[in-house]
């Protein structure tokens, strides 16, 4: 009986969120193109080589960076390796189940990974220790703590923030003195919900319940597009795509400034 | 022998425009923004604006006579496989006679073949059957043939002409289920002939002059006896 009444409450809420939107209002009073408040706390896990916690409204994500030497990929013998993983642990949402990563957490990790990789934020050639034998492997582990919507942007923000305070643990592995991991570029992802004609930047969980339809666009420090991902079951028009591109690049600029100031 | 698809039938893909008049929407089409589009790959019958499917699953409709196979027996009726994504249910109350004092299992058991009418379908596609119909029966003997359900109209023929032809010329009993199952009973040789003819009809369903060809085929078969 409990689940049933919860579902009914959810339906009433959904209807309320939708009616507000029809009235050009978001439930939390934000403008359609407005992010929730963003808080970036770097270095929250001192045991990790780099870390950051990001609070995007009530959404909370911790990203920890661990680094260790290992074998390079055979096709890139002189480059370091980035491995990005996301765990949507059951503590973060009633809809997350324990167990191996599902398609949503895999998609999230891969979209975050592409933003960092394609922007060239990390110079992988600098992470080569001995060509063909030994390179630094960067593990980016995304840990969701509270999913109140738009985990993706919170995660990519936490990931780049964590990389920006990462120390290469050379001493621990006998490769000389520890060094700061150089970060050359700051990719920022912007996710928008696409609902009928409306575009809702940084959707909250209440808004995400209305539709799974969204587009994530990641741009780099030079306003280049470095990653895009359409997700959900809908037809996207060309015009809407360009509108999303402009919006995402503009929003990313503001967030990038925040990251620089941290 | 080379046969051609009837020239008035154009091949259409899903999404092809069928008509700009939404009142002219036949089966196999959908309407959006006042236009009628094909929703399946098939042949367009330009007279009726319907798309005749080449393949596809049998989806029951109320009023269809179907041939089903009992899949499971429950205390209140029978679960019937109707050659569809959906199974059907035949409640004991829709069996022609009262079955007082007997278990449903004693009347019909798993594997039994029946002809029955689709009488109700709810929005969740739960399908209900009835045997309280003149054409409904338990099919004890005979042979069951399965063809693509989309070819059933050609086996029946215009106003039942094809099935009448087979019955008359071969002296067999035939029940054609809308779900693509056909039951034939009679002397073994004649069942074989009927099976042969039905297979030809299925294969050449979209060609012209089918009745003439079947007539001459039957003559040929009989001469061989």
């Amino acid at each position, binding site marked *: 009986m409990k689940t049933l009444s919860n579902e009914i409450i959810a339906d009433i809420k959904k209807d309320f969120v939708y009616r507000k939107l029809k009235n050009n209002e978001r439930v939390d009073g934000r403008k359609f193109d407005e992010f929730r408040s963003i808080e970036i706390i770097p270095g929250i896990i001192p045991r990790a080589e780099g870390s950051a916690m990001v609070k995007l409204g009530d959404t909370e994500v911790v990203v920890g960076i661990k680094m260790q030497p290992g074998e390079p990929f055979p096709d890139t013998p002189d480059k370091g390796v980035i491995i990005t993983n996301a765990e949507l642990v059951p503590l973060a949402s009633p809809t997350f189940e324990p167990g191996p990563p599902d398609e949503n957490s895999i998609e999230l990790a891969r979209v975050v990974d592409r933003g960092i990789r394609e922007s060239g934020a990390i110079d992988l050639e600098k992470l080569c220790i001995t060509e063909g034998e030994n390179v630094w492997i960067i593990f980016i582990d995304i840990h969701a703590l509270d999913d109140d919507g738009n985990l993706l942007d919170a995660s990519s923000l936490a990931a780049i923030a964590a990389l920006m305070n990462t120390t290469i643990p050379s001493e621990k592995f006998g490769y000389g003195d520890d060094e700061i991991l150089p970060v050359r570029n700051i990719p920022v992802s912007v996710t928008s919900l696409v609902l009928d004609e409306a575009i809702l930047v940084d959707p909250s969980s209440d808004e995400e319940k209305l539709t799974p339809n969204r587009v994530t666009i990641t741009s780099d420090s030079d306003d280049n597009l470095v990653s895009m991902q359409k997700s959900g079951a809908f037809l996207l028009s*060309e015009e809407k795509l360009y509108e999303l591109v402009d919006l995402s690049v503009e929003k990313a600029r503001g967030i990038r400034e925040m990251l620089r100031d941290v | 022998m080379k046969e051609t698809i009837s020239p008035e039938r154009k091949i259409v893909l899903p999404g092809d425009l069928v008509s700009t008049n939404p009142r002219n929407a036949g089966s196999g089409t959908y309407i959006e923004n006042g236009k009628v589009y094909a929703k399946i790959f098939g042949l367009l019958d330009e007279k009726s604006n319907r798309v005749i499917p080449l393949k596809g699953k049998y989806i029951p409709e109320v009023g269809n006579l179907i041939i089903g196979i009992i899949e499971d027996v429950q205390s209140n009726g029978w679960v019937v496989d109707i050659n569809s994504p959906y199974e059907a249910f035949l409640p004991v109350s829709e069996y022609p006679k009262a079955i007082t004092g007997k278990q449903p299992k004693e009347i019909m058991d798993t594997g039994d073949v029946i002809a029955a009418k689709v009488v109700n379908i709810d929005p969740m596609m739960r399908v209900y059957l009835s045997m309280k119909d003149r054409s409904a029966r338990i099919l004890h003997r005979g042979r069951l043939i399965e063809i693509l359900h989309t070819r059933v109209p050609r086996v029946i023929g215009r106003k039942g002409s094809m099935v009448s032809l087979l019955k008359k010329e071969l002296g067999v009993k035939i029940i054609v289920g809308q779900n693509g199952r056909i039951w034939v009973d009679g002397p073994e040789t004649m069942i074989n002939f009927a099976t042969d003819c039905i297979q030809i009809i299925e294969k050449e369903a979209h060609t012209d002059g089918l009745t003439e060809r079947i007539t001459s085929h039957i003559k040929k078969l009989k001469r061989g006896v």
Partner: protein
Amino acid sequence: MEENQKFIVNGKRIDGRKIDELRPIKIEAGVLKRSDGSCYLEMGNNKIIAAVYGPRALHPRHLQDPNKAVIRYRYNMAPFSVEERKRPGPDRRSVEISKVSREAFEPVVIKELFPRSSIDIFIEVLQADAGTRVAGLNAASVALADAGVPMKGMVTAVAVGKVDDHIVLDLFKDEDNYGQADIPIAMFIRDGKIEGITLLQMDGQITKDELKEAIKLAKKGCLEIYRLQKEALFKRCRGEDFVE
């Protein structure tokens, strides 16, 4: 292949194509007996088989949707399809591809006609040469039509990319590996016209203007592929099933 080798010389690509030219494509509908619909497709050196089962009963029951069919899509690469043997079974890449590919069909398949059922789409990549996900979508679309599954139109897909600062159509392996951007795109085509984007991914580095150019090229490519999909289905219709 050197990383700084030129990909485009005098307007021609390494494999001799122009920048807006597709690789040779071969499509055959109805190639498998057991499935309800199927398609074999070659796109350059990609060799893909698609099979569709359904709508069919979906078990266990908790997976059912009381109002519509559930689409399931499995993109799978054969271990021998790539240079280095791929470990069999789903990896993270194929899980993501399966998700976005399924979503590409969600707005196109008329699911409401088949409550509680499933429509299962299986893609097997037998040989891979860049653009396997879009080749898979093209094959799946033909297999769905062949199975008689109701759809609002067809899905047609192509990858566009950036190499040597040029936006080019339908990347092959080297261009994909060493290029500057890869953009797989699927379009919804109705009555021969493009009506929307149904899959879009991108990785690399492009500007908004380059994106516009890429979409323009993708539209051109998709319309050409659509004609080939149509041809394959016409051939299927006129094939042995109907002509003695």
